[in-house]
């Protein structure tokens, strides 16, 4: 067969892209580390302002959705199309729950006059300003990744329903899954660093 699809190659391509994402967020974590070293007391003060319950809930939501995405791949490999569809729909729902939580969280912060360039932050301590600046940049960029991940999962869902993703070719689903797991990986670091610093 001349038009054999190189599945390993497709996967390596996806991983290469994920490496660039790891370095992108890694750079932001370097910024976090340096400013944490400079303003430790303000970082813990800022961290106490964040809602741990929402943070923990979002962690659980993302972990569960990562599990269901992995399970949907298992389902496709076992030719269980209906189960795969159910797992994917559930994962996308988890993404929506995550974003709704984020909306309420950001909304509450903005309501308390805590947002980039707000009066409270600009005239307040520089350490707090930097903490919340990093908070908005990192969780905002992460939120964008959640939206992109949900889009990729939705496309995979449509392809599964249309019968284009099957047990013999499921690279699209696999790569969307890898992206979704990356979103989860980043959150695993964001959660303790922002919500749990003492």
């Amino acid at each position, binding site marked *: 067969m001349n038009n*054999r*699809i*190189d*599945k*390993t190659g497709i*996967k*390596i391509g996806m*991983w*290469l892209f994920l*490496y660039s994402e*790891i*370095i992108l967020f*890694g*750079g932001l*974590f*370097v910024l976090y*580390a*340096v400013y*944490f*070293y*400079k303003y430790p007391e303000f970082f813990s003060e800022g961290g106490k302002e964040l809602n*741990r319950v929402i943070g*923990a809930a979002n*962690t*659980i939501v993302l*972990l*569960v959705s*990562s*599990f269901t*995405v*992995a*399970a949907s791949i*298992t389902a496709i*490999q*076992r030719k269980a199309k209906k189960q795969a569809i159910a797992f994917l729909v559930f994962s996308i729902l988890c993404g929506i729950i995550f974003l709704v939580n984020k909306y309420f969280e950001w909304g509450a912060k903005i309501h308390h006059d805590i947002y980039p360039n707000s009066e409270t932050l600009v005239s307040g301590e520089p350490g707090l300003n930097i903490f919340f600046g990093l908070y908005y940049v990192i969780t905002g960029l992460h939120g964008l990744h959640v939206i992109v991940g949900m889009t990729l999962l939705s496309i995979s869902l449509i392809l599964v329903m249309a019968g284009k993703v099957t047990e*013999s070719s499921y690279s699209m689903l696999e790569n969307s*899954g*890898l992206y979704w*797991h990356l979103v*989860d*990986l980043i959150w*695993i*670091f964001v*959660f*303790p*660093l922002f919500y*749990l*610093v*003492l």
Partner: protein
Amino acid sequence: MDSQENNHILSYTKLAIILGILLILTGITVAVSYRDLGFFNVPMALAIACTKVTFVLLFFMHLKYEGPIINLSFIGTISFLFIMIGFTFWDVAFR
């Protein structure tokens, strides 16, 4: 059909066990955060986060079952990340 060689199928049970471990670790990291460990606050949180990430990478992302190209390039990326974070921090801490 010959490109299916590393098609390892993870059972639902195994995936669920991994999810259970991840949820327990999340509980531990939240519980630990209520205790002031002094200097060890951040290292402890990062150690738990790294353990969680390892489970996600190995099983959810199938890294355990991939060939050497993906495994080695991943290790290369992480090494670069450590150099980036480590050297920056080294510079900042001893300035």
